[in-house]
């Protein structure tokens, strides 16, 4: 048993946990961080993209030492049919700036670095230790944790729960419900290694420039889902994910969908000849604003994926996680500096800070989107991608058909599939959920 009492215990060493531990330790608080993996990052999975702005607010000079892969200069959104894709692409040399805005990262390396920074500030890390339970006093205030180590009971004024999307602690303690099948997506991912020059030639990149491809359409078999290709320095991360609720109604396997995605004629040439070195799976919180649980209580706060803080529409998660970890830590520091207790009332300032930040504002903006995409999956992921693909082929193929007839045929195909009221309804519903 560790006799010492800590100011704060942080459960987990992912984005949210590391941000919290770093912020608390750098303000002089006595912090213990517990991680069940062999090292921080060994249980963590992400695409992954790092958003610099939110990390800068925690570690301003991170670019000097953090293990970064490529800074992103180009984004490709692809709407896929079985044999084609219609793309929206943006590339700008303005993204080649002194302090780039987005980077690809490899989580096991990045998390190890971030946790090391927190330790350098004074946080104590114990690895290979699974937290099994929260301990509460007779009044229900959380006062510490038990771990799977012998005599592993540890006390603290406050516990920061950064246990990730599949968190057991908070749900077992009744602080929140476990995620529901329509609130999480299952994504599988492979790491494909290729020589650096090959990646740069195939993706039209110079030096450390990087590109992101995000693709949705018939490749998800009518389910709410998408695939991605992210360029790292000497590897390409390729993944595919769908809502668990949709998977449960389907006979498709996640690895089968990933294989189909990799075999798609638009993807296969990008991966040709690569060596696969890892296969991972992970849940992604997709429930948005309406799925965010109670965020604080007597002696505890919950941050990051464990709190469903993920913007599925913009594929942003790690930045919401880091920001929530930082804001929770700043709240704790302020309470501590006032020499007050970690009560539910005092910790409610964390939620207020989140609401004033982009985190809750962005989630609120898209609060109706998860339900819309889920209930209209067949239209948005099969019907429209197929119609758009046919329209593009019709537009581009020169075969002597007068253009006026081609246009009429395209419009007829849309109306036949969705009807005029369906088309306007789909556009209206999408616009309203986006607003």
């Amino acid at each position, binding site marked *: 048993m560790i006799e010492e009492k800590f100011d704060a215990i942080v459960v987990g060493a992912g984005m949210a946990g590391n941000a919290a531990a770093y912020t608390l330790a750098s303000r002089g608080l006595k912090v213990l961080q517990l991680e069940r993996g062999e090292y921080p*990052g060994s249980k963590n999975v992400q695409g992954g993209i790092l958003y610099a702005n939110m990390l800068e607010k925690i570690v301003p000079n991170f670019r000097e030492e953090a293990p970064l892969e490529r800074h992103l200069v180009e984004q490709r959104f692809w709407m896929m049919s079985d044999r084609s894709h219609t793309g929206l692409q943006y590339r700008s040399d303005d993204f080649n700036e002194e302090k780039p805005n987005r980077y690809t990262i490899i989580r096991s390396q990045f998390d190890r670095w971030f946790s090391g920074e927190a330790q350098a500030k004074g946080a104590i890390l114990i690895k*290979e230790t*699974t937290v099994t339970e929260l301990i509460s006093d007779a009044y229900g205030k959380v006062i510490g944790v038990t771990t799977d180590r012998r005599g592993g009971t540890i006390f603290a004024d406050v516990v920061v729960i950064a246990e990730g999307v599949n968190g057991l602690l908070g749900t077992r303690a009744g602080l929140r419900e476990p995620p529901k099948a329509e609130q999480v997506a*299952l994504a*599988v991912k492979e790491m494909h290694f290729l020589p650096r020059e090959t990646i740069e030639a195939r993706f039209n990149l110079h030096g450390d420039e990087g590109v992101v491809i995000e693709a949705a359409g018939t490749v998800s078999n009518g389910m709410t889902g998408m695939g991605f290709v992210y360029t790292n320095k000497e590897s390409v991360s390729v993944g595919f994910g769908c809502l*668990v609720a949709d998977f*449960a109604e389907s006979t498709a396997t996640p690895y089968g969908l990933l294989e189909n995605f990799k075999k798609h004629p638009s993807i296969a040439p990008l991966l040709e000849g690569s060596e*696969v070195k890892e*296969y991972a799976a992970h849940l992604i919180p997709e429930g948005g604003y309406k799925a965010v649980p109670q965020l604080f209580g007597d002696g505890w706060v919950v941050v990051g994926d464990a709190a469903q803080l993920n913007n599925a529409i913009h594929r942003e998660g790690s930045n919401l996680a880091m920001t929530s970890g930082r804001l929770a830590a700043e709240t704790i520091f302020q309470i501590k500096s006032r020499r007050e207790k970690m009560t539910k009332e005092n910790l409610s300032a964390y939620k207020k800070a989140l609401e004033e930040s982009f985190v809750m504002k962005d989630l609120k903006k898209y609060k109706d989107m998860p339900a819309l995409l889920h209930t209209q999956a067949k239209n948005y992921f099969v019907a429209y991608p197929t119609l758009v693909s046919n329209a593009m082929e019709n537009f581009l193929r020169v075969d002597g058909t007068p253009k006026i007839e081609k246009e009429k045929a395209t419009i007829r195909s849309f109306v036949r599939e969705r009807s005029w009221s369906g088309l306007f309804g789909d556009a209206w519903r999408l616009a309203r959920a986006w607003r």
Partner: protein
Amino acid sequence: MSLEAARVEEKLYQNRYLVDVGKPHIVIEPHEKPSKNLLAMTTLCPAGCYVENSAGQVEITPDGCLECGTCRVLCEPSGEIRWNYPRGGYGVLFKFG
């Protein structure tokens, strides 16, 4: 072994694991007939850990588990499975993540 099952097994060979022998972190409760969700895990588990036996019951070998939690989301509420994290340091050890 089906083609798909062979395919996922091949993928799992790329990964590092430290298996806590004799202490599976996921256990299926004894059952006559699996629920729809439990049966769905035979295709949905990304590591192919769940299989249907000849008697129509679902069995699990969680050695290749990627600890995603999908089966917990679908089958824990009904009490059909018990799900715990592996002991600290055990389970999948992602090299890249």
